[in-house]
């Protein structure tokens, strides 16, 4: 008897939602990637982490919901969904933005980078990811993808010159565990 393939929870969810793993996941019905066209559907082409996706979306679809529910990129988190917590921070056109307050259509024609797109091609961690590990800059981890995307931009903008400046320019990313001391230290290290 052959052992059934092992999947992490994340891979399983991703596989099911993309319709890639019907046998392994034992899904009775396979969800397809092609959406059902609706009268309100609008064609949107997104470039996410260097991959181009042609999608048919409800005009109401935010970039956040599209990343998570259509592209199975679950790293970007939904916290408040009202632009107050920073958990959904991604880069659009090289700038950090809140994907919960941006319609997917508004990201068309601009490069979108999420937490899944920052590691090296060989899987090596981004310097900011490594710094977060080095400084225990997280506890529960829910805010961490947003913190890291924001931190990469904070350093790139030149706003990581001092702990005070880092705190000011990272204030849009809340951490309810209170890992702020580690986050500031990690950004200082990565900015060197």
């Amino acid at each position: 008897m052959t052992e059934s393939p092992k999947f992490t929870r994340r891979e399983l969810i991703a596989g099911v939602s993309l319709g890639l793993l019907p046998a392994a996941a034992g899904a009775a019905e396979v969800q397809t990637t092609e959406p059902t066209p609706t009268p309100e559907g609008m064609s949107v082409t997104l470039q996410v982490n260097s991959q181009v996706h042609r999608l048919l979306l409800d005009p109401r679809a935010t970039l956040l919901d599209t990343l998570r529910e259509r592209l199975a990129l679950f790293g970007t988190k939904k916290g408040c969904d009202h632009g107050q917590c920073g958990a959904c921070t991604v880069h659009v056109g090289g700038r950090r933005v809140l994907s919960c307050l941006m319609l997917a259509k508004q990201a068309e024609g601009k490069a979108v980078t999420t937490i899944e797109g920052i590691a090296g091609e060989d899987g090596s961690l981004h310097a900011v990811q490594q710094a977060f590990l080095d400084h225990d800059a997280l506890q529960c981890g829910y805010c961490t993808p947003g913190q890291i995307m924001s931190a990469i931009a904070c350093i790139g903008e030149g706003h990581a010159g001092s702990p005070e400046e880092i705190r000011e320019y990272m204030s849009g990313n809340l951490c309810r565990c209170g890992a702020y001391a580690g986050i500031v230290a990690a950004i200082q290290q990565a900015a060197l």
Partner: protein
Amino acid sequence: MQPFRHLTPATAEEAIHSLATSAGKPRLLAGGTTLIDLMKLQVEQPDLLIDITRIPDLREIRTEGDTLIFGALVHMSDVADHPVIKRDYPMLSEALWRGASQQLRNMATLGGNLLQRTRCAYFRDTQFPCNKRVPGSGCAAIDGINRGHALLGTGSQCIATYPGDWAVALIAMDASIDTLSPRGTRSIPIAELHRRPGDSPHMDHVLAADEMIVRTRVPASPLGKASTYLKIRDRESYAFALASAAVALSMDGDRVRDARIALGGVATVPWRAREAERSLVGKPLDEAAAHHAGVLAFEGAQTTSENRFRVPLGINTVAQAIMIAKARG
């Protein structure tokens, strides 16, 4: 969120045409940081979004003779970090970087920011009466939780605070906007853009339904250098003002030649404190004079049991901002 159609016009004229000819409830969409938020809350329910972010010629930052020009789609972060603005107009830069977060400043536009809607919790929650959201329904804030509500420019129907910072700094600089509508272009001083609630608190501003902001004009001024935007909040960053003051000075030795003072976070509209300005002009400037100007700025304040602490806080904010501006002169 209610369903809507999404248009992406290529020119401002096209956007205005869509706005003017739509039979339903159209809204212009720029940064979306207010509008999308309020649509999720069902406070805004447009059936057509006219997305103006693809219009190329609204992104200019330039000088034209003695005027600074900011296109309506320039992002808050672009001006906050602009080296010339930081050097010559610290008040303008500070009013921007002390607002929101860097993510929001990368999204929000200078045109949209002027028309940011109030953060009154009753306005944002459709379960409550609100004369601004539903005219004639009443005001839950006047006898409700109103610690953050306005002290100046209030009325019997609405005490909602105008939350922005940028417009406050701009009125101190006598800035204006250029608008476009099917009737052509016009220029409006920003000091005349916002409406006090009066008997129609649902009308935040004087723009027509088919009119859009295309740029902001700030008269270049030597007043810019000795200036500051001081913002006092419950937490040090990423919060709306309990009280803020935009102050710009022109000094003649130790005497004040000209002074500009505007208040944020304490009024229903961006608030120019002209009496306070006049009290400084022609006299030596010390801490007592700065404090007296603060007292004058808050004359006539209407308080509630919850928000009266913000009168002395506001006076101190004005006084401190004056001294910061003086030190930069």
